[in-house]
């Protein structure tokens, strides 16, 4: 268990360090990207649905996988659309 706590705390420190000098224009895309990344909870949803052996478990699992997939896919698509516009504008300049 101590190894698990170690991993979590190190991840928090990396998260604090990795975002420091972000220009204002990137705040919105960055928020959207981190939003997509926490969709990694879909991993948990797959584990739940994969091991579901009751009706209740299946219902919970299906909802968790659906929510998680929407979070991941929608999040990445929206972020990419935002960044695409930045890129083309900067390119023309």
């Amino acid at each position: 268990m101590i190894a698990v706590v170690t991993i979590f705390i190190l991840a928090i420190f990396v998260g604090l360090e990795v975002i420091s000098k972000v220009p204002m224009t990137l705040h919105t895309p960055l928020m959207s990207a981190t939003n997509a990344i926490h969709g990694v909870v879909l991993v948990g949803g797959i584990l739940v649905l994969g091991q579901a052996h009751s009706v209740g478990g299946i219902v919970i699992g299906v909802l968790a996988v659906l929510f998680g997939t929407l979070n991941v896919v929608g999040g990445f698509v929206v972020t990419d659309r935002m960044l695409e516009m930045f890129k083309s504008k900067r390119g023309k300049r």
Partner: protein
Amino acid sequence: MNLAALSDLVNVGYLLAAIGFIVALKMMNSPATARKGNWVAMGGMAVALIATLFHPDIVQSLTGTGAGVDDVMRGETIRNYVLIAAVMLIGAVGGIASGRKIQMTAIPQMVALLNGLGGGAVALIALYEFINTPDPSRVQSVTTVLSAIIGSMSFSGSLIAFGKLQELLPGRPITFKGQQGVNILLFVMVAGLAAALMFFAASPAVFAGLLVASLVLGVSGVLPIGGADMPVVISLLNSFTGCSAGLAGFVLLNTALLIGGGLVGASGLILTLLMCTAMNRSLGNVLFGAVGAAISTGPNAALAGKQPKAYSVEDAAILLSNANSVVIVPGYGMAVAQAQHQVKEMAAKLQAMGIDVKYAVHPVAGRMPGHMNVLLAEADVPYEQLYELEQINPLFPETDVVLVIGANDVVNPAARYDKTSPIYGMPILDVDKARTVIVSKRSMNPGFAGVENELFLNDNTVMVFGNAKTTISKITGALDSY
């Protein structure tokens, strides 16, 4: 392959995913590499998801020979794989379709909605683990309860934020008498139920009560926050969902969740604080500003009793056509009315008439920091016409006409001198120093900070009331006549 080796392989997959997420966030710190960074994050996510399909916890009931693994169990596991594939396909199609279709102006509420779904998924996982872990360790029961609370709050809070931005709910702060008391009571209830679950009675009824109380707390926490502060709220809830996903990692002993969740929990918090700094407000002020102390700073005495000058669109068009230099200040109202294309059209017409046109973009203009740049980019506004606060402020005294479109607090002169104003100290665009200011606004209602704006009553200010989109396209039409 035996299960231990498979477990190692899955964990190597999670390690690669974690490295991908970290590298991706680093790349997103700079505009040049941001888009590639997002792709790296996608790649990391794909690795994590594929690895999970081979997770020993699932695979063992398919190939294993241990106790309880029989043909029924195998059949159910195969059915579960089919379900996973089907649901993910549906979710992916839905996610791609809505992500592509969504208007750029509606991005903030889209992020809110997606974030809420993530929080909901965490709460569901916590619920499942609570039911199916008969004898949890202390750490597991604590993290299950915490991820359930934070996940549900993030779910309901994000839905309220979505409702406010989508204008299904009123954007103004919703407050009522005794609100503080209700919130404190809810908080005590959640804490009490959580303690009961962790230390005394792990009963499903108590857990259900905890979920309901957390959902209500999420609603009542976000309701009193105004629409303009929703970006900060969404960013904070984003961090919440990250934390709860990380906590779910403790429950499932899963490194992908631990690292992905921990990263987002921490970076989301930093981002939230950066947004608050840009608005010169504290996080506490954003979250609890409207509760309790109602803000009431009237216009100063010299302006008391003055009425704003209302102009027609034709009058505004005459003013614009007689100018040599025009600065357009787009704001929240323009984003709401989705008027960026009309604004671009009008600007093109003014330029064709030989008038110099610039855009002044306040750091927090729009609905999120940087949102206005995205909107103007979408409407193909030339990048070199965009001016930032520090560049444009010295130019205002030489500007003939400033056209403020749906901006309010970012052009309020009170921020410069009125120490009692809640926006005191926020850097503003000094539009009041221009020769004439035209303000396109729906009504005289104060902005989301709830502050009166003396700019609207100044002698050199004229107001054109109405929806920004309609107003601007009418002005463009009227320009033809002059």
